[in-house]
């Protein structure tokens, strides 16, 4: 039973940013899944495990932490702190192709949002910092600045970020022919607690405690990066 029927502009913005139609370029990445699919025949549960490891070991403790920290910097209008978050996450991305794709997506996301969100100083200041070479615009930080500018609550922004990651991997699995469309939706449904837990565990983590540790996935992505024939950006 619905306890609350109130809806507002923030909810629409939330839907807009979580829509796979929102232009970020993330559909072109598989996060190494394509390389894994060449090594072994993958099943539905493998995709679920792949995403779970990413959420718990990489995207949660690094991207989601950076997003939470970005929100705090925006709230305090603290540009130097925002730049530290930007740089810390940039240097934590050890796979070159993943790093550059994240920067490209982040920059385009900011350009898109700034086309319809005006008069948000942090959004403008962050873009200025990028254009002067003082920030990279890496995706989770750009996403945080954009979501904050759209007045989306922090925890919900975390959900969109991790949900978006999950859907991008599912999309890659569908296009690689590993899953059929019902399986993809089933995995998203089953992963709800993992997404939720990863947000709640990491969104308030201090930037000094940001981490990621998934050496197997790193090696996989390195293998993918040098593949001569591939559909996806790593």
């Amino acid at each position, binding site marked *: 039973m619905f306890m609350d029927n109130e809806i507002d502009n923030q909810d629409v913005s939330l839907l807009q940013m979580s829509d796979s*139609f929102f*232009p*970020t*370029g993330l*559909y*072109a*990445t*598989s996060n190494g899944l394509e390389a894994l699919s060449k090594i072994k025949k993958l099943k539905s549960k493998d995709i679920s495990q792949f995403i779970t490891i990413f959420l718990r070991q990489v995207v949660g403790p690094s991207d989601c932490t950076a997003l939470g920290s970005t929100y705090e910097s925006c709230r305090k209008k603290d540009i130097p702190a925002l730049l530290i978050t930007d740089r810390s996450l940039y240097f934590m991305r050890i796979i070159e192709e993943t790093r550059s*794709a994240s920067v*490209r*997506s982040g*920059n*385009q*996301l900011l350009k*898109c949002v700034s086309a319809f969100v005006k008069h948000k100083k942090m959004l403008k200041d962050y*873009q200025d910092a*990028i*254009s002067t070479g003082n920030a990279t615009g890496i995706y989770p930080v750009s996403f945080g600045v954009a979501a904050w500018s759209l007045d989306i609550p922090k925890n919900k922004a975390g959900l969109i970020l991790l949900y978006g990651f999950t859907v991008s991997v599912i*999309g*890659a699995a569908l*296009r*690689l022919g590993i899953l059929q469309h019902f399986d993809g939706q089933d995995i998203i449904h089953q992963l709800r607690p993992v997404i939720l837990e990863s947000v709640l565990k990491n969104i308030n983590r201090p930037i000094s405690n940001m981490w990621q540790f998934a050496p197997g996935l790193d090696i996989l992505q390195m293998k993918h990066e040098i593949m*001569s*024939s*591939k*559909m*996806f*950006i790593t």
Partner: protein
Amino acid sequence: MSSHRIPRVGIGGPVGSGKTMLIEQIVPILSAKGYKAGIISNDVVSKEDAERMRRNLATERGLMQEDLVIGVATGGCPHTAVREDPSINLSVVEEMELKHDYLDLILIESGGDNITTTFSPALADYFIYIIDVTGGDKYPRKRGLGIESCDLLVINKIDIAPYVGADLKIMERDAKIVRSSKPTVFVNSKTGQGVDGIVSNIIRDLLFEARPKSLVKN
């Protein structure tokens, strides 16, 4: 961030229609006239096209710098990458504009079938769609977004038309009907026959007869 937009040509067409070979014919003609081009190749499954153009046009013939040919992976969605979400392509274009502001134009190649291919106006200023005669002379008559919406339709492999039963006159007639006043050029991109006409169209309709930047500076 980019400050000067360099004119951009989107070149789309089905796999095997001759997009890469066409670019390999266009660039030397442009180069001989003093125009400098960069190339972005949206590869569907491999880096082969970008590597081939880099080797052929840059390494072996010295017509451009090697870093002016960039391959982009599209996650199996070449249409999306040039149409509804061109984020990655735009990012690469803007990087090229920033690093190589002396370029006169940027060629953006993408595979894509006739039914759905079109370039976002944010990405390309001029759209060339290429088909070949092996699909039969009914191809233009059957319409489609690519054939109908492109600024210049290129019909390739005219040398083998007699062997596949394609009547070029029928293709020309139907292209005129379907595309109103927009131009169609018949080429053999293997020999270069007809490619001059494509370059003339680009210089007239995209560059508005502007002289090459290198000549203006001198």
